[in-house]
């Protein structure tokens, strides 16, 4: 068929696909989003929650770049908490329990409201190439859509196989078809394909549980907000989670059923994540434990279904039912959907450029679980980046890649393309060397200006951002110039509230750096009596922001030294044609690794395992020679 064309085509409308399509469209690319089912756009296939430690950092970054996820979570969140609230701001993380239906609706609305973005419901079967670049996609019905760039976000659908006990069948998610033809096609094309595994727990009808016998866990007060543009008013009615636990009897049931488990029966070859083990795994690996915690997460406001987070399983249904009913409060539980394990294809992400384009085929971008990651947030972040660069590809712009010092998104793609994955990759704050700089609270300061340049940030967000930045910087400036004398009334008040002694004349900013001096204490003491109010209107959260920046200020010079070195390495590109084997000082093993990974610059080369400072110096010398020659 003729005439069906777009500049960017995104295949798949999960968390990666939606961000990719919206980002490309926001940047002005004529974009087509192709999905097997328009009804399941924005579907949460696993547990109904967004955020968490490390993950919420990604969500805030996606949001700072104008993405969809944070706002959808604000519109759908029925329980909000701040994790690590007692620790420093760098590791504080927002987590939202979402109503699946409301979340889908919010995402669908964002997609439908997006200019330059059209939807197509088709099953993509083939990618068409010409001269090493992607030119079109073909659907199972034989419809061809031409494109200049294609973003592939297949999730768990690529060669998906679902296991429950000894039974298994091809499937992309419970009740949905996998993408078998596309999987075969990608293998044909010579991509390095591996198998990964993930799983879900059985779902339970809340009316058949005795929640009163479990521990209730409510939203935090005041209610946290996910998006920089969000507000508490957007949140729907809140609904608590409940906590219960497995017991010895549960474990006996599981042990007795292990021989029927596809995991332990050897029928699953895919590698599952260590941090998201099935209950079978937990019982085998931590045999001494007598109990494992379970979070009963409500699936929504309009449904009785609960998601028992902590008992992901692929045991046969009868064992699932028995194990659920052995749990306190679940004695009469009715399972609405059995749990299952799913195996799916992923493509070795070392075959990608850091801007998520495949090295093999020009114009083809991959994002989400296809790259070996797990989690909605990891998927969304990659989708956004792939969308940005697909649109950039169409407009013949330089690719954009955030660095490890700018964003968790930079850590994520760098880890993927330089290290590859041995198990589904999940974000942790410990993966970020510059953790104290990459915080939820400053994601906008780090990324929104870049987003504006790229065309991702609309006028409203830009205005809100600039206003906030102006307020905070004025306040910080005023606090730096405001001195507090030991004998002053303010000093006495601050000491009285915080217990902090003021022995010498000190700037208000330096006072804020003291752990015991809270933002609100300082605000109470200084707000009325000093000149700060006349120079700028400030909000309580601005004081909190300055407090955070003041407490980490001591770390910034130290990190900046490291960052300078990193920058210098990043600024030293390695040409794709660079021949490592002719360099005499490199070991054959290292030369082999470098050739295979083809790092784009010296910083990437530095992170390849087995790299030594000496080898790096040798590379630098040779690169410098090639540049000058």
């Amino acid at each position, binding site marked *: 068929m003729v005439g069906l064309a777009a500049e960017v085509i995104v295949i798949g409308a999960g968390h990666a696909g939606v961000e990719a399509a919206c980002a490309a469209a926001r940047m002005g690319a004529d974009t087509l989003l192709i999905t097997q089912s328009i009804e399941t756009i924005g579907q949460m296939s696993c*547990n109904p929650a967004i955020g*968490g*430690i*490390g993950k919420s950092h990604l969500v805030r970054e996606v949001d700072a770049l104008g993405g969809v996820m944070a706002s959808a979570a604000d519109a759908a969140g029925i329980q909000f*908490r701040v*994790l*690590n609230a007692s*620790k*420093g701001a*760098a*590791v504080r993380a927002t*987590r939202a329990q979402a109503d699946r239906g409301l979340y889908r609706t919010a995402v669908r609305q964002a997609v439908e409201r997006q200019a330059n973005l059209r939807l197509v419901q088709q099953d993509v079967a083939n990618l068409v190439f010409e001269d090493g670049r992607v030119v079109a996609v073909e659907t199972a019905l034989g419809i061809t859509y031409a494109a200049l760039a294609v973003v592939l976000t297949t999730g768990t659908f690529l060669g998906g196989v679902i296991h429950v006990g000894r039974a298994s069948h091809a499937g992309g998610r419970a009740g949905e078809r996998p993408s078998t033809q596309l999987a075969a096609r990608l293998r044909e094309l010579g991509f390095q394909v591996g198998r990964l595994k993930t799983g879900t727990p059985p779902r339970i009808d809340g009316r058949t549980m005795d929640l009163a016998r479990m521990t209730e866990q409510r939203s935090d007060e005041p209610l946290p907000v996910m998006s920089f543009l969000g507000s508490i008013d957007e949140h729907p009615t809140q609904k608590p989670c409940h906590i219960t*636990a497995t017991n010895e009897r549960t474990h006996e049931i599981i042990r007795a059923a292990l021989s029927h488990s596809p995991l332990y029966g050897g029928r699953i070859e895919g590698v599952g*994540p*260590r*941090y*998201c*083990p099935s209950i079978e795994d*937990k019982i085998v*690996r*931590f045999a001494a*434990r007598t109990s*494992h*915690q*379970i*979070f009963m997460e409500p699936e929504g406001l309009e449904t009785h279904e609960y998601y028992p*987070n*902590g008992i*992901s399983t692929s045991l046969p249904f009868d064992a699932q039912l028995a194990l659920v009913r052995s749990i306190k409060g679940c004695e009469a539980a009715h399972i609405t959907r059995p749990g299952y394990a799913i195996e799916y294809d992923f493509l070795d992400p070392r075959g990608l450029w850091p801007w998520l384009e495949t090295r093999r085929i020009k114009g083809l971008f991959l994002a989400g679980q296809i790259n070996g990651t797990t989690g909605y947030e990891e998927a969304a972040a990659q989708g956004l980046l792939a969308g940005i660069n697909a649109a950039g590809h169409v407009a013949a712009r330089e690719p954009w890649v955030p660095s490890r010092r700018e964003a968790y998104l930079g850590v994520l793609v760098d880890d993927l393309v330089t*290290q590859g994955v041995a198990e589904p990759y999940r974000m*942790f*704050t*410990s*993966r970020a*060397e510059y*953790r*104290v700089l990459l915080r939820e609270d400053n994601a906008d300061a780090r990324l929104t200006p870049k987003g504006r340049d790229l065309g991702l940030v609309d006028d409203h967000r830009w205005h809100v951002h600039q206003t906030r930045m102006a307020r905070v910087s004025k306040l910080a400036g005023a606090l730096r110039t405001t001195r507090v004398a030991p004998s002053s009334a303010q000093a006495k008040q601050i000491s009285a509230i915080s217990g902090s002694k003021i022995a010498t004349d000190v700037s208000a900013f330096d006072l804020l750096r003291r*752990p015991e001096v809270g933002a609100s204490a300082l605000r109470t003491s200084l707000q009325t009596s000093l000149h700060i109010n006349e120079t700028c209107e400030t909000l309580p959260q601005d004081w909190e922001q300055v407090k955070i920046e003041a*407490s980490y200020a001591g*770390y910034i010079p130290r990190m900046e030294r490291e960052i300078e070195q990193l920058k210098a390495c990043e600024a030293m590109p390695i040409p794709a044609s660079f021949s490592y084997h002719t*360099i*005499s*000082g*490199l070991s054959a093993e290292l030369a082999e690794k470098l050739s295979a990974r083809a790092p784009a610059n010296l910083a990437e080369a530095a992170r390849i*395992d087995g790299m*030594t*400072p*000496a080898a790096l*110096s*040798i590379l*630098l*010398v*040779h690169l*410098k*020679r090639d540049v*000058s*020659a």
Partner: protein
Amino acid sequence: MVRLSGPEALRIGETISATELQTRHLTRATFEDSNGEAIDEGLAVAFRGPASYTGEDVVELHAHGSPVLLAMLLERSLALGARMAKPGEFSERAFLSGKLDLVQAEAVADLIASGSIGMARAAVRSLKGEFSRRVTALDDAIKAIRVEIEASIDFADEAESFVEMREIETRLAALATQVDAVLGEAARGAALSKGLTLVLTGAPNVGKSSLMNRLAGHERAIVSAEPGTTRDVLHQQIELAGQQLEVVDTAGLRSASSEVEAEGVKRAQAAIEEADVRLDLWDASRPETRGAWPAPSTGQVVIEVMNKQDLVATRETDCLAISAKDGTGCAELVKEVERQVLSARGEPTFLARARHVEALQRCQEALKSARHEHITAKAPELVAESLREAHTALGEIVGLTTTEDLLGEIFRNFCLGK
């Protein structure tokens, strides 16, 4: 000679020399330690960048060359803010600042490569034994604390109970004491092993002890014509090509006839295996003693030596011929050993030691700030930050721990994930 390069070179050089240095002009100077006491008399010269080898300000301190004095000069420079250069770094800097021809890039790269091999060899030597065990134990202890802290940060919403901050504080204090102890020993050099070792092997009574005495210049071992006189391993320090060389004499290898001798044989075998350079001796008057040597271990330099050439009329020509008794051929032997030692290109041990001390000091500083920040700020993420720094510093001695290693350890120790 100690060479300093960089913007602070002049300040450090002048402080040590206790005098103003003139550009491109040798100045006689007394190098002083931090108490103003003389380390050595020598010459100092300054070169202003860009008219210097590296293109930066450069100061050269020419001392008398004894490794001990050089080590003291080095230590003083480090205390004044310098850091140890990486292998080939001066050439690298020279190249990067355009002081060297592009054609020389290959040579610079080779220099870095061979230098790093030498450094690695020296580090391995210096890491033998007790010191290595203790630094590894420190590394493990830091890793264990990091596992706890990182897990408590990244898995705060899990049911696992992580170690309390008070407990972490106690462990950090214990760790700091441990680092202080290791640092104290490392600085004294007590815990570090010696430089290169040279071992004498051969059948009984081929003249090993005589040669040892010859090399050392005085009678150390008991020499007698009776086989089995040397019952133990004897050590002797000599200096060759600016390197400390420990000469080890071994009991003749043969089936032991007494218990005391059996122990000596056991020790000798270990010494032979660990040696960097080996002199395989045989007796010219007894050709059957040729070839009675154990197989060389990996990387060992082996030099075959025919002793007692004064006892025979004809000289074997396919190996070094000497007489330990009258000294014939011993000068040639020393030259050959020097050549081999130089070609091994091992970094002098005192340099390796200086690197280790420097790394331990950075580790100590970072631990200090971990404790300080933990106590004042109650911020585990900052404690984690300092611990990462401490761990990285130790990693320069025992190998780096990656985030993946850490995560692996976390998942092994805790049941995490829903």
